[in-house]
């Protein structure tokens, strides 16, 4: 099912298909006409995706068929050895972790994982972690530090799960601890927001030296729906909230929240997952290579400074 703003594109694509089969059946030469339509299609796609509203980008970030954490893991990394469990409470399927090879080095991978279908979505709790997932991530941070391997995290979650067990088991405590633990890493850490960067549940594994984001991914303090429910008292005002929250990749780059925006194939990552994954791979390769020569303490310090700086405020003395 196409997203609403994808309909004109799909319509035009259908028209081109029709014309092609008509030309073939009737053995008429419509090549010229088809070429013209294809040019128009290309322009339509570029235009549509350049002009997407923030709310529409939220739809792209959540689109079915968009590559998930495990898709990246399997396409970008070799020899993946999944590691399970938090050694405390359980093994959270909403976070997949392990060791893998990437660009000639071992990396420790922490990937939030939504389902690729309904069954997997239920198994993965729609990518919403319990405390156990963050404890598993922290175990990976420890492992990375112990053996000196870089950390790659892939962020894609609506948020940490809001449930009874999650609260009982200290959801806030593990998020805070994970933020601290990741900030203290003495190895390179790169995070990529590949879909939804949902609030504290995303930041918990996002305290990296370099924070990358895909062009149509989002990263926000609150979901547009919840924000709308609070400020407009109506979740249906989510489009307004999305606009106000400035949660797109370009917005976040302007706010220095992310360091680099990775372009998606025209039409969005869900239209060409392989191309999207290649782009992420290329960006990751560059970032990890750039960090490889830094010494452990410098890496920690740089990460500390990066997050220490974030925020905008007014010096009142200067104003007065």
């Amino acid at each position, binding site marked *: 099912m196409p997203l609403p703003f994808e309909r004109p594109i799909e319509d035009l694509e259908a028209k081109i298909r029709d014309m092609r089969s008509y030309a073939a059946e009737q053995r008429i030469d419509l090549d010229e006409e088809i070429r013209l339509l294809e040019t128009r299609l290309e322009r339509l796609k570029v235009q549509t995706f350049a002009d997407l509203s923030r709310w529409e980008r939220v739809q792209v970030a959540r689109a079915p068929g968009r590559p998930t954490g495990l898709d990246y893991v399997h396409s970008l990394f070799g020899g993946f050895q999944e590691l399970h469990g938090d050694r405390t409470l359980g093994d959270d399927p909403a976070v997949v972790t392990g060791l893998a090879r990437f660009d000639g080095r071992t990396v420790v991978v922490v990937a939030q994982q939504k389902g690729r279908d309904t069954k997997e979505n239920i198994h993965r709790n729609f990518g919403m972690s319990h405390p156990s997932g963050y404890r598993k991530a922290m175990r990976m941070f420890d492992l990375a530090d112990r053996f000196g391997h870089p950390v790659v995290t892939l962020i894609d979650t609506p948020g940490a799960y809001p449930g009874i067990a999650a609260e009982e088991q200290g959801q*806030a405590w593990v998020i*805070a601890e994970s933020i601290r633990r990741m900030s203290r890493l003495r190895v390179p850490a790169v995070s990529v927001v590949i879909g939804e960067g949902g609030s504290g549940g995303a930041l918990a594994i996002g*305290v990296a030296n370099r924070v990358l984001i895909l062009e149509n991914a989002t990263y926000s303090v609150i979901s547009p729906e*919840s924000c709308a429910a609070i400020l407009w008292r109506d979740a249906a005002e989510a489009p307004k909230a999305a606009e106000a929250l400035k949660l797109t990749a370009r917005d*976040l780059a302007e*706010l220095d929240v992310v360091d680099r925006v990775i372009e998606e194939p025209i039409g969005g990552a869900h239209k060409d997952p392989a191309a999207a994954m290649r782009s992420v791979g290329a960006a990751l390769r560059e970032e990890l290579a750039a960090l490889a020569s830094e010494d452990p303490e410098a890496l920690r310090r740089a990460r500390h400074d990066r997050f220490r700086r*974030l925020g905008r405020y*007014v010096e009142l003395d200067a104003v007065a």
Partner: protein
Amino acid sequence: MALERWFRRSRPTRSDDDPSPAGLWLKCEACSAQIYKKDLVAAAYLCPECGHHYRMPVEARIASLADEGSFERWSGRLGPADPLAFHDTEAYPDRMKRVQEKQGRPDAILTGAATLHDEPVALVVMDFFFAGGSMGSVVGEEIARAAERAADEDRSLVAITASGGARMQEGALSLMQLAKTTVALEGLAERRLPYVSVLTDPTTGGVTASFATLGDLIFAEPRALICFAGPRVIQQTIKQDLPEGFQRAEFLLKKGMLDDVVPRPRLKATLARSLRLLRGRAPVAADLAEEEVESTHAASV
């Protein structure tokens, strides 16, 4: 992030307001006794009848902790910007102006130096009556600066938290304050200076998920609501009633998340004693005198 109902345009629920101003009498929300408001204020915002802990204005909190005349304000020179040009039904700067005037400070926090029974500390106190104590760039920056200055001046850090969570109007920048406040605590750890947090009603969302729960010791006030996701969010998610006492301080103590639940009258002595112990100094008489009345488990008042 926890729902921040304190940003709703109108109808703030009664308990969101400072209980002290306007009207002479109050009906206790816990025991229904008629309380003379002056008595409530005089009793550090405890119901004189049942001991119920009311939310406390920032200045009263500082007065209840800092040794007399010892408090020196640090915060106040930073004010909120409007990085998103945020506008819901009202522009963010306009909303801020109103709250600033009401609360008499530029944002939802007061920090400064003080002594607690002669123990030098940096005090960070969140103002829940200022936009629900929500944490934006100013709150995060003030906390970070207080933590760093505490480390420089060889002071312990004490944070009294009360917050609806991260401030939506500053978007992802508010979210980043979780990381900023966290990394700013490192200087204390490196210098072996204690950081003790005290979670008061309510402490939720992004504040709970960052510096509030990173104390070397974590105390909470009786019956304080402490959570990541608020009770209503959870109820909407699971469509079930929540267990009695869920997300309250006593519940979290049982779940292993707190070092203790400390009633307000014992808070200053408990803080001073804990800080002195952590710093390897002998507790002073005032701390030990309070200790005698303590039971092993914090009594709920």
